[in-house]
């Protein structure tokens, strides 16, 4: 039976996954330590926005006044040197309200501005309803969030109801974290649906045939299983038409995964994709 998470569970799940991946994936520790500190600020911003319920028309000013100072503080306290110096430099020349408005409008902006805006706007949009999300700019098509028009950050396959089923595919929004259904064999960036043009990169030993099982949802005989796969539940979904990619997370393979966190920590896959000339449809909060 599908379990519906409450708002508080969502933040607890993100914290849990950060701790799990931090212990398991040492290469991402610097990122996850910082994201863990940022999560505390975002959760507080989420709860305050839910309680204050600012008017949708005041979204940008509310975020700039109430949330940005905390995001700046945690960035200066726990962020890497370059982030700290860039944040200080940008705030000397640019008011946060402009950064927030550009992110909400979907305009191009420098990476540090975008980081500050994303980190501050995200939890507030998650807390507020459809009216606030509807004020955000961006196309309302199959490849963008139907709620806020934001671009897709990641792709995930839901955990199926039984072992012989495959869960549907969803895209998760980079702006408000909402999810929407999207066809499996279709590029999330340009809509290409010719399988000859869609390339998937995954670690050896992660398909059922390589695990010694003819049924995807069942364990194999273990003979061919690679126990040292770093990302057994993840793959790079690349498109040769638009030369872009998105990371995919399979919740059937790892039901404990939290797509938002797992995607952020999968830097080796990002490096691999970029080495092959693909660029990400949307870089994540940490700039990868």
């Amino acid at each position, binding site marked *: 039976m599908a379990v519906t998470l409450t708002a508080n569970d969502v933040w607890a799940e993100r914290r849990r996954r950060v701790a799990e991946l931090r212990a398991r994936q040492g*290469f991402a520790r610097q990122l996850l330590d910082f994201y863990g500190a940022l999560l505390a600020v975002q959760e507080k911003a989420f709860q305050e926005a839910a309680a204050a319920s600012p008017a949708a028309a005041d979204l940008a000013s509310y975020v700039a006044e109430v949330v940005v100072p905390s995001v700046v503080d945690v960035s200066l306290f726990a962020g890497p040197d370059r982030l700290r110096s860039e944040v200080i430099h940008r705030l000397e020349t640019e008011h946060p309200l402009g950064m927030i408005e550009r992110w909400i409008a979907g305009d191009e902006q420098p990476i540090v501005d975008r980081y500050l805006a994303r980190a501050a706007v995200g939890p507030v949009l998650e807390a507020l309803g459809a009216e606030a999300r509807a004020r955000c700019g961006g196309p309302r098509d199959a490849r963008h969030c139907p709620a806020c028009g934001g671009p897709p950050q990641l792709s995930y396959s839901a955990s199926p109801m039984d072992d012989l089923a495959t*869960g549907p595919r969803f895209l998760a929004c980079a702006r408000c974290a909402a999810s929407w259904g999207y066809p499996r064999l279709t590029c999330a960036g340009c809509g290409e649906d010719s*399988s000859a043009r869609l390339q998937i990169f995954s670690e050896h030993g992660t398909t059922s*045939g390589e695990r010694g099982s003819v049924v995807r949802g069942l364990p194999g005989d273990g003979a061919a299983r690679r126990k040292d796969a770093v990302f057994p539940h993840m793959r790079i979904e690349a498109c040769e038409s638009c030369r872009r990619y998105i990371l995919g997370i399979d919740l059937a393979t790892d039901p404990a995964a939290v797509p938002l966190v797992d995607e952020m920590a999968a830097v*080796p896959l990002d490096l691999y994709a970029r080495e092959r000339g693909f660029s990400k449809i949307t870089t994540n909060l940490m700039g990868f």
Partner: protein
Amino acid sequence: MVLPTVTRREFLKVGAAGAGALAATGLGFDLAVAESTRVKQKLRIAGTKELHSVCPYCAVGCSLVAYTRQKSDGTTELLQIEGDPDSPVNEGRLCPKGATAMQLAVSPRRVESPQYRAAGATAWKSVSWDFVLDKVAQNIKASRDASFVTTDGNGNIVNRCEGIAFAGGAAFSSEEGYFATKLMRGLGLVHLEQQARV
């Protein structure tokens, strides 16, 4: 087309600027990048393709997604088959038989040649396709000749074969079904059934 001439010095300047721009795009998680680069170099990653297919078994016609990989010798390796979650027919689900469809291609116990058990024999033996086709043709001819009816009980001319029935498989395409029906009607068969779908 005239290509611009780039000196070695200019090339190095452009390269250095590009590298600087790349570094400047990051938020400074240099340690994570360095560690991830080391991990990336050890990953055994391979490219695969996902392809649409249809289950070959029953008349429901469930949609499948097949994962394949091009091997270094040029052959294609089948890695995984699962239900297509976007299909309105099965919505990602498969029955226990369809879920094992991969065995049709990869099972080591797959029977790879025709098996023949002669009348009165107790064991099967492997035979050639030529033998089987000749044998089937001979049996059809013998049964047709033995059971062909030219007139019914009232003296009406019917010219039909009552000794053979034909059942078409679920995996028949429309064209194959049409061809099979034409062939069997040509032999005079009247007992025809077809598990048609695709």
